[in-house]
């Protein structure tokens, strides 16, 4: 299998092509632009359609229309652009449309800056737009995961008839790292009996989301709720790193997730039993990962690039049975492995006993 060096954003584009994606609708915004640039150069000869839309709203609604026909479709943007797409994502969730949405998270609020951030965690995992819906959210932390998770995202979207979000960040998007271009695992056949493609030989179909009465509205909400509960039960993914015997755990995803691995290795060298839980699905949040640890670990630190968003889900997952602290950098800054370790030692009074 081919091992190549590519920018994170380009990897997403290549993985989409190899996932059988047929259409891409987008709008340029730093630091996600290389996705549409890469696809503009490489998608047409693979039989794909790339359309640079008039705006983000147009792009997401084009995804909506294309998905209604059963085609694999993707869009990519960065934080402010993803905000603009939220109405369309809400409609897509309501009509249960499979699509892949990439958010190369930059810092905010407002125009913000172009540096990496995890400030869109709430937006990604709690619905994001209006109404009570959920979007499956995958958080890659390496080039290889950008590739693998993009492929997985298309299958999850089809499997659950739901939008899937890939939450990357400016750092992962711009960095070049080797990636193995694995062949696509054979995707199972998905039910497409719901699509709209002309009514030849069948009854007409309508794909829409209006609830004419409150009774219909509640029935719809109950239906979606059941589906989301099922996804929460079956699709949680996470990685554990030196967690088994850990006295303290870091919890972190994406770019900071991989920084934390270095922190754990440094801590272990100093005799501190530190481990890491790295959520891969942010929704559904992997609360199952915490079950073996919530009665035995002395404390946890979430490491985030925001004011503390995932920490709320961690506290719920451990039922507040132990102190959960936050170490964060913001505005496009990344923490170093040592900064994080200093914080852990300080918070849990480990500096003295740690010095071997």
């Amino acid at each position, binding site marked *: 299998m081919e091992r190549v060096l590519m920018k994170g954003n380009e990897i997403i584009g290549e993985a989409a092509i190899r996932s059988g994606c*047929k*259409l891409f*609708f987008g709008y340029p915004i730093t630091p996600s632009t290389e996705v549409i640039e890469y696809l503009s150069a490489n998608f047409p000869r693979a039989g794909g*359609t790339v*359309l640079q*839309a*008039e*705006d983000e*709203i*147009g*792009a997401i*609604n*084009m*995804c*909506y*229309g*294309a*998905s*209604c*026909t*059963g*085609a694999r*479709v993707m869009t990519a943007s960065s934080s402010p652009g993803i905000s603009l797409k939220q*109405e*369309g994502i809400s*409609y897509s969730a309501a*009509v249960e449309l499979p699509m892949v949405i990439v958010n190369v998270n930059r810092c905010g609020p407002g125009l913000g800056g172009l540096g990496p951030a995890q400030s869109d965690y709430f937006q990604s995992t709690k619905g994001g737009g209006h109404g009570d819906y959920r979007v499956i959210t995958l958080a890659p932390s390496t080039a290889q995961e950008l590739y693998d998770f993009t492929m997985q995202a298309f299958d999850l979207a089809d499997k659950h008839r739901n939008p899937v979000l890939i939450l990357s960040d400016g750092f992962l998007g711009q960095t070049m790292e080797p990636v193995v271009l694995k062949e696509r695992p054979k995707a199972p056949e998905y039910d497409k009996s719901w699509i*709209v*493609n*002309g*009514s*030849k*030989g069948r009854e*007409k*179909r*309508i*794909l*829409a*989301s*209006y609830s004419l009465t409150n009774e219909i509205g509640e029935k719809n909400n109950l239906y979606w709720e059941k589906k989301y509960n099922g996804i929460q039960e079956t699709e949680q993914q996470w990685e554990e790193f030196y967690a088994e015997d850990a006295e303290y755990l870091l919890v972190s995803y994406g770019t900071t997730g991989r920084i934390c691995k270095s922190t754990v290795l440094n801590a272990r060298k100093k005799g501190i039993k530190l481990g890491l839980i790295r959520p891969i699905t942010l929704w559904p949040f992997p609360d199952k990962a915490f079950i073996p640890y919530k009665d035995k670990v002395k404390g946890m630190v979430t490491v985030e690039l925001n004011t503390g968003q995932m920490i709320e889900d961690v506290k719920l997952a451990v039922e507040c049975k132990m102190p959960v602290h936050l170490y964060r950098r913001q505005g496009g800054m990344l923490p170093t492995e040592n900064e994080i370790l200093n914080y852990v030692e300080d918070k849990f009074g480990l500096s003295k006993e740690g010095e071997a």
Partner: protein
Amino acid sequence: MEKVFARSKGLTDVPFSFCPGCTHGIIMRLIAEVLEELDIIEDTIGISPVGCAGFSQDFFSCDFIGAAHGRAQAVGIGAKRALPDKIVFTYQGDGDIAAIGTQHAIHAAARGEKITSIMVNNAIFGMTGGQMAPTSLEGMKTVTSPYGKDVSTTGYPIDMPTLVANLPGAVYVASVSVDSPKNIAQAKKAIKKAFKVQQAGLGFSLVSLLSTCPTNWNMSPSDSLKWLRENMMPVYKMGELKVTEEVESL
């Protein structure tokens, strides 16, 4: 007895739910007849908007996608790009296409998207109860312009077809009315031409139809038709506003 008139196969048997005197029903019938005559009912995907025009999804017998307010053309473009051999049309009110969704109309025309847009212009927001629209006329009283529309602060009526006709990708643009049997016949011709343009893959086609809203205009159906003729037709440029040579030779 000889059957002289029947419901078009392009319509379902769901009864229209529009207010008395509303001309949506006439316009939908015309489209349905065109779909039937061109034998494309089973190859067509309609896109319904938000607003009174949104009910269209239940009345046409072809496949339908319900779009968010203003997004019908973007949704239609997504479907058409995915299935270039199908016929895709949007059925939109003036609020949908000339207020919240203007950018999609302009860019659909600029790119020459091979879809057909039907715009139903009654100069008001009907579904939400008669608010001012960008298409409302100067001095027109609505619930959000109770003292009459003051164009100096709320803007002049937007003539969407004229605007769109200026763009090279729009190959057929017509502005018609359904206020009289003669005009209804003309309107049908325009609609048919717009669909033929799409069948031939020539570019973007738009048909705007002046329509009434007796309920929110606070007029009888017959007074509404009169008001349309006397007030709307002088403001909005009527007729075939853009017919390219290729369309001419269809």
